[in-house]
C-alpha cells in the first residue's frame, strides 16, 4: 500500500475506530467488569435470572423469523410478478417501493392507526364480516409478535424485492427458452432454474435483513410500549430507566454475539465473495 492511499483512508479508519470499535469494545468490557474492579460474570447471571430478558431473546428471534418469512415471501412474489413485464409495471414498481423511504418511526405511527383497537384493520375486517368484535392486535404476546413483524415487513419488503429483482434480472433468458423447448412446465422452470440461480440474492437478502431484524428497536417500542421487550429495547430500558449500564452492556453483548453468529454462519455458507460483490 502506498503512503498516499494510506493517507486517504486514514480519516475514515480513525473515525470508525474511535467512535465505533472503541465504544463497542468498552461495552463488552463494561459487561464483564465488577464494580470494585476485576472481571465477573455477575451481570450476565443477573439478566439470565430476569424473566423479561428471556422473553426479549425469544421475542427478538421470533420477530426476526416471522418478519423475514413475510418479507421473503412477499418480496419474491412482487419480484416475480414484476419480472414478467405485466401491464402497468412501471407504476406498480414505483408504488411498491414507496414504503422503503418512510422513516421507521412513521411506519410505527402508521401501523398504530392500522392495528389500533379502533383502527382501520378492525374496521375493514368488521365490514367484511370476518370478525364480530374488534381485535386488540397487541393484546397478547403472539398477536403482538405478529403485528410488529408485519409492521417491519411493510417497511422493508421493498428492499428485499429490489435485491431479488436484481437477482432475477441476472438470470439469462436463454435458460428458460431451452427449458421450454424441452417441454418443462412453469413450475419445473421455477424449481430447476429460478430458485437455484436466485440463491445468492436470497441468501444476501436473508443475512442483510436478518441482522437488521435482530437489532429491531423503534417498532416494538412504539407499537407495544413495554409490552414486547426485544434485546435492543431491553438494553435501552436497563440503562436509561433503571440506570444500570452493566446489565445493559451485558444484554448488548448477547445481541452482538447473536449477530456475529448469524454473520459467521452466512459467511461460512455463502463464502465471503458473495457479501462483497
Amino acid at each position: 500500500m502506498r503512503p498516499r492511499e494510506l493517507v486517504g483512508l486514514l480519516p475514515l479508519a480513525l473515525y470508525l475506530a474511535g467512535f465505533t470499535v472503541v465504544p463497542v469494545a468498552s461495552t463488552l468490557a463494561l459487561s464483564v467488569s465488577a464494580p470494585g474492579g476485576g472481571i465477573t460474570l455477575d451481570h450476565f447471571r443477573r439478566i439470565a435470572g430476569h424473566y423479561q430478558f428471556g422473553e426479549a431473546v425469544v421475542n427478538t428471534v421470533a420477530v426476526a423469523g416471522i418478519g423475514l418469512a413475510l418479507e421473503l415471501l412477499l418480496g419474491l412474489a412482487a419480484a416475480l410478478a414484476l419480472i414478467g413485464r405485466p401491464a402497468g409495471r412501471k407504476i406498480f414498481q414505483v408504488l411498491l417501493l414507496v414504503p422503503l423511504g418512510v422513516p421507521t418511526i412513521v411506519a410505527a405511527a402508521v401501523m398504530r392507526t392500522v392495528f389500533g383497537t379502533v383502527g382501520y384493520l378492525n374496521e375493514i375486517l368488521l365490514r367484511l364480516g370476518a370478525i364480530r368484535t374488534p381485535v386488540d392486535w397487541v393484546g397478547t404476546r403472539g398477536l403482538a409478535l405478529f403485528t410488529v413483524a408485519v409492521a417491519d415487513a411493510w417497511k422493508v419488503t421493498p428492499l428485499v424485492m429490489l435485491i431479488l429483482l436484481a437477482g432475477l434480472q441476472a438470470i439469462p433468458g436463454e435458460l428458460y427458452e431451452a427449458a421450454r423447448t424441452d417441454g418443462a412446465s412453469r413450475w419445473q422452470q421455477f424449481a430447476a432454474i429460478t430458485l437455484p440461480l436466485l440463491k445468492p440474492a436470497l441468501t444476501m437478502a436473508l443475512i442483510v435483513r436478518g441482522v437488521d431484524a435482530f437489532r429491531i428497536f423503534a417498532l416494538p417500542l412504539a407499537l407495544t410500549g413495554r409490552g414486547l421487550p426485544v434485546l435492543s429495547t431491553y438494553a435501552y430500558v436497563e440503562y436509561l430507566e433503571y440506570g444500570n449500564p452493566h446489565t445493559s452492556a451485558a444484554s448488548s453483548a448477547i445481541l452482538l454475539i447473536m449477530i456475529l453468529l448469524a454473520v459467521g454462519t452466512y459467511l461460512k455458507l455463502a463464502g465471503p465473495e458473495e457479501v462483497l460483490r
Partner: protein
Amino acid sequence: MRAPTSSMLALLAFWAVGPLYLMLKVSVSPPGEVMTARPTLLPHGLTLEHWRRLLEAGQVLPPLGKSLLTAGLVAAAALLLAAPAAYNLARLPSRWRYGILLGLFLVRMLPEVSIALPVAVVFLRWGLMDSVTGLVLAHLTLVLPVVAWVLTTTFLAIPREVEEAAALDGCSAWQTLWRVTLRLAVPGLAVAGLLAWLFSWEEFLLATYLTLGAKTMPLQVYYYLYQGNWFLTAAAATLMTAPVLLLTGLLQRHLRATSLAGAVR
C-alpha cells in the same frame, strides 16, 4: 397467469400505499370521523385544525430545525470523510480492498445499543448531550460504512483509462481528480449524500440516548405517539415523510444502478 399477476400486484400496491393514505387522511379528518368505534375509510369532512395546532404550538419547529441541520451536516461530513477513502480503496489491489470492505461490512453489523451506551456516557461528560454536534458525530458511525461502500462502487466504475488519458493530455494529478474523476462521480456522490441524509433524518435509537430535552423529529413523532394523540402524530409523521418521498423519488432512477450493492447494508 396474467389476471392473477395483476391482481396480486394491485393487492401488494394497496398494502404498500394504503397505510400512508390513512396517515394523511387522519391528519386532515375531524375527530368524530376517527375516534369512534367505526372510523370511516373515505374522507367525509376536511379540517386543517390538526395541522394548525401542530405548527402553532411551536413544539414541532425546533425538532424540525434540529433534524434538518443534523441531517445536512451528516451528509456533508460523510462525503468529506468517505470520498477520499473510497477513491483510494477503489485504487487498491483487490485483495486489500476486499479485506477493508469486509471490515466495513462487519462494522455496519454492530448493534447500535452497544455503540450508543458508551457514546452517551462520554458525551454526557463532554457536554454534548442535546447538541447537534454530538448527534452528527454519533450518526456518522452508522452512515460512514454505507457511504464508503457506495462511493467505492462509484469510483470502481470509473475506468482508469479516462484518468490516464487526462494525464497524457497534460493534466496534473489534482486537475485530473477535480476535472475528470469527481465530475464523473457526481451521480454516485449525490446518491451517497442523499442516503446519508435519509439515515440521519430517521435515526431514532442514538437520538434517544443522546437527548435530554432538545428532541429531533423522530423523537417528536414518538412523543405524540406516546401521548396517544392520533391527529398530531399523523400530521407530524406526514410532515416528516414529505421530504423523504421527494428525495427517494429523485433517487429512484439511480437506486438500482449505482447503489444497491452498498445501500442495502
